[in-house]
């Protein structure tokens, strides 16, 4: 295609298209850029300029302030714990659910597939699920955050499709001839060949755990078990609503307000840090996951 000569009309099309794409990309990126710039700026000077494109009066005071905040550390510790345990359970369970469904000889495959996918479209709802967790006695514990969502049907389908399309049947057959059991076949032969999709799953589930707040909002009652997102909600949402309603009273009030504004930006950066660092490296994996998922199974 690249060798085809372009007419002036095509060249114009290309130029317009490229300009629009760049404009859209900048609009999509700017909010994130703004937060990063604001977090390293002097809180009093963030709003001096029309659009922040460079740090205003570079300072890291806001970061110092969040390091002194105990809640953030508790939140960070809990989130890391929930994310690691939760993701490990997710990946393990998804593999167990997806592998048999990917085998053509699996008798009853359609029944299981129907039962699993049905849950995607009809669920008991918030309260019946709450009551189940209550009767299991797992409220206000790590288990209520990691077990009820152990398998995402969407991810299960992606994984099944991968097994179906990427693991040659001959491999399975030869292993059977050697007297290999299903269990050993899965863990010794299939999984080592499935590392790309396992990486994708770890990322999908991991990001989900890291970012979730609602389950903890309904199920967690002890403050020292709150994940980071709940503390973020207090700082970013609840306080902000108060600020929007509040009226400035004295000189110091506005000073305090400004310092608090600064903390908001730095905390957004700090909470998204793991992803911000890994993002450029991980993007290839994300795209791969989507590609596998796009092949409709």
């Amino acid at each position, binding site marked *: 295609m690249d060798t085809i000569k372009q007419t002036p009309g095509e060249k114009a*099309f290309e130029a317009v298209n490229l300009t629009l794409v760049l404009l*859209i990309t900048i609009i999509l990126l700017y909010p994130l850029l703004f937060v990063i710039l604001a977090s390293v700026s002097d809180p009093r000077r963030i709003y001096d300029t029309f659009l922040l494109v460079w740090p205003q009066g570079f300072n890291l005071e806001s970061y110092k302030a969040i390091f002194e905040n105990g809640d953030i550390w508790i939140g960070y510790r809990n989130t890391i714990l929930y994310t690691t345990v939760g993701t490990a359970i997710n990946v393990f369970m998804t593999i*167990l659910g997806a*592998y048999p469904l990917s085998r053509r*000889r699996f008798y009853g495959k359609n029944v299981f597939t129907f039962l699993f996918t049905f849950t995607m479209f009809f669920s008991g*709802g*918030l*309260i019946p699920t709450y009551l*189940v967790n209550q009767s299991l006695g797992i409220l206000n514990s790590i288990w209520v955050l990691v077990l009820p969502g152990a398998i995402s049907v969407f991810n299960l389908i992606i994984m099944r499709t991968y097994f179906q399309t990427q693991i040659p049947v001959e491999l399975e057959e030869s292993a059977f001839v050697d007297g290999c059991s299903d269990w050993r076949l899965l863990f010794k032969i299939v999984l080592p060949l499935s590392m790309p999709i396992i990486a994708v799953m770890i990322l999908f589930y991991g990001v989900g755990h890291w970012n979730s707040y609602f389950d903890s909002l309904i199920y967690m009652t002890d403050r020292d078990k709150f994940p980071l997102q709940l503390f973020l909600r207090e700082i970013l949402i609840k306080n902000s609503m108060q600020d929007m309603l509040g009226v400035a009273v004295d000189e110091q009030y506005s000073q305090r307000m400004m310092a608090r504004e600064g903390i908001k930006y730095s905390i957004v950066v700090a909470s998204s840090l793991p992803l911000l660092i890994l993002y450029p490296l991980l993007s290839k994996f*994300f795209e791969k996951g989507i590609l596998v998922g796009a092949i409709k199974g």
Partner: protein
Amino acid sequence: MDARMEIQTARKPSAEGFSRRLAEIGKQLKRNIGLYLIIAPAFFYFVIWHFWPLYGIQIAFKDYMPALGITGSPWVGLEHFTRFFRTFFFWDILRNTLGISVYGLIVGIPAPIILALMFNEIRTKRLRSVVQTISYAPHFISVVVAVGILFFFISPTTGVINGIITRFGGSPIDFMANPSHFWHLFVWSGLWQSIGWSSLIYTAAMAGIPPDQYEAAYIDGASRFRRIWHVTLPGIMPTIMILSIMSIGGVMNVGFEKVLLMQTDMNLAKSEVISTYMYKSGIVEAQYSFSAAVGLFNNVVNFILLILFNAIAKRAGQTSLW
């Protein structure tokens, strides 16, 4: 391998009689025993956290009392439903739920398709991958942080958007104080988060279109627009249909975690949706039965819509979910 093939052929349906068939099933089950053991944990997971809750749905028709349990609580029929339908704000909630959803679909379905088409027309591969990677970065921001960032931008005193408005001689708008802005804020900030990621799926689908179709169109003298219209779009049509049915099927479940975060007493008139109402009556006020009834109403309407749209897509000769 040979032995297994024999079993496969022997399984062919025959009118040989019931007991023979039963023995056949037994054989099949035995042969797959390893796979059943592997799938067992996943199966029990679905039973406990997806099917057991279905049993609890009955409290929507009961007066649930924790001491009596789900089974022991007295039946009250449709009392909770009629109470819900008769609340004076029922129609407001329904209008908000459908309004926000449909608005979101109208914006959210075509936008990523258009963006993917635009990406697809960029010739420099490297540039294309860079802009695409940037475009889906907001997808990985948590909803709490996303709403936080939205608040930074719309703040009446310090927000960037009001900065721009005053710059051009307008007067600052207090977006959160005026309920009429809520839908726009919700939908467009949602698009910011979702457009790049959704376009990625279409890009993947476009990569699967055989290049000879483009070549043939080119030889036939089709212009750039014609090639997009007659080759690219039909090529990704099945993906468009599947994703549309999926999002229409979720029409009643407005991004409820986000609505909850953006809700204030001031914008309640435009921001209360069925799911937030269900959350408040159930979790906050502990009216379990009433909340379960609200939730069931929501789920049933949703499920009917999904089946309906799937049927329409099927009839139109397009792809369908099942």
